[in-house]
């Protein structure tokens, strides 16, 4: 399949081709690719695309990147949920 048409990050519309291009421009680790392409910064927070990105980076560099930052919440939660909850 044409790499141009393969969407890796569905939240931010990042394609396979864009990742390869960014890698060749010097963005070689997950954090700098996140900053440059905004990959993994959408509502799913990388649950779909970061494992795919790890694999692509492995293909490109031979190293499997491990330094992934995981932040709460696990899934988006409305602000209203946290309001007026009595402290224990």
């Amino acid at each position, binding site marked *: 399949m044409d790499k141009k048409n393969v969407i890796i990050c569905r939240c931010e519309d990042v394609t396979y081709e864009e990742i390869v291009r960014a890698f060749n421009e010097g963005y070689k680790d997950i954090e700098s690719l996140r900053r440059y392409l905004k990959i993994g910064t*959408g509502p799913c927070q990388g649950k779909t695309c970061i494992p795919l990105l790890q694999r692509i980076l492995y293909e490109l560099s031979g190293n499997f990147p491990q330094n992934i930052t995981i932040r709460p*919440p696990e899934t988006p939660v409305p*602000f209203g949920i*946290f309001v007026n909850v009595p402290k224990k």
Partner: protein
Amino acid sequence: MKSYDVVVVGGGIIGLATAYYLVKNGVRKIAIIEKEYIGSGSTGRCGTGIRQQFTTKEHIVLMRESVKIWRLWEEILPKPIHFRQGGYLWLLRSEEEDNEYRKYVALQNLFGVDSRIISKDEIKEIVPDINLEGIFGASWCPSDGSAYPQDVLDSLEMFLKSHGVDIFDYESVVDFKKTSDRVISIKTDKDEYALDNLLIAAGYATKSLANKLGFDIPVKNYRHQIVVSEPLKIFLSPMVVDRSLYFTQTYRGRIIGGTDTNEEETDDLTLTYNFLQKFSSELVSVFSKLSSVRLMRHWSGFYVVSPDKHPILGPTPLKNVFIGTGYSGHGFMLGPIVGKLLAHYITYGMFFLEEANHLTLDRFEKGMLIQEKAVIG
């Protein structure tokens, strides 16, 4: 051994902005050493805000000059930094607060900042959805705003690399080689570099690096937490401040904001549920429409706080070592002007703004701390 005119420790806004102005000043051999990735410290974790509504001459003048550079950078840097002058809307909840902030506004106006006190009707015009219950008025500055930290760093990094600046990321400082009053070289976990001048702009790690060099900086690290929501259609352009709560919307449509949970000094970045409760309650009480909007990411970073809550800039007891730290939560917004000041100091041995002379490390020894001028009388 590679040799540099200036080695900068710290790949955040201060390090990159200083390197930018060193390039502009004609300094040829510059290296930046960053222990993780560019922006991994406080810059990449910050709340994006850029304001001039301060209460001392030093802060107001520095921020006035910084905003000029932010505006210039939006035009001339290789990539957009999304600097937006959406204003800062500082809500006031009592007549006493209103009187107090009128004094601050008078001081801001004196130094050329276009802030003013506005009524509830005007607040309604600027942010129609705000809950005005219990609100007396607001302090409003239309030329305040925000920029997108990651895009700023990315753009500066691109400029620096195209001008021959060496950026070493994932490389941490291990040791220094020094004589009695100078640093000769810096040793990292990968290499050793000879240097003429050294700038330490390493955020929360600046103090420990200074200690390694044999002097102390009176700063403390405080954890501050922050959240970002899912993307929404753009509807909010100012930064809204309500006591300790602040929030705005980024150009990517996300609500970003935080509040102060009055924590003790710490080196721990653990997140707390207490923060989420306090932030959400404050946010929803002033802007109820956001109740159903979903929080997407929660993180924390350090405020490096100095005794008078003002930056510590420039010379140190070592002749060729310079520092920039202690921004007390305002490092990102101050970044451009501090970069320009530090680069000028390193290149020419002096600051170009009188106010910066009040911000050196020796002020603590001399007992010349910055006073809150606006509260006098």
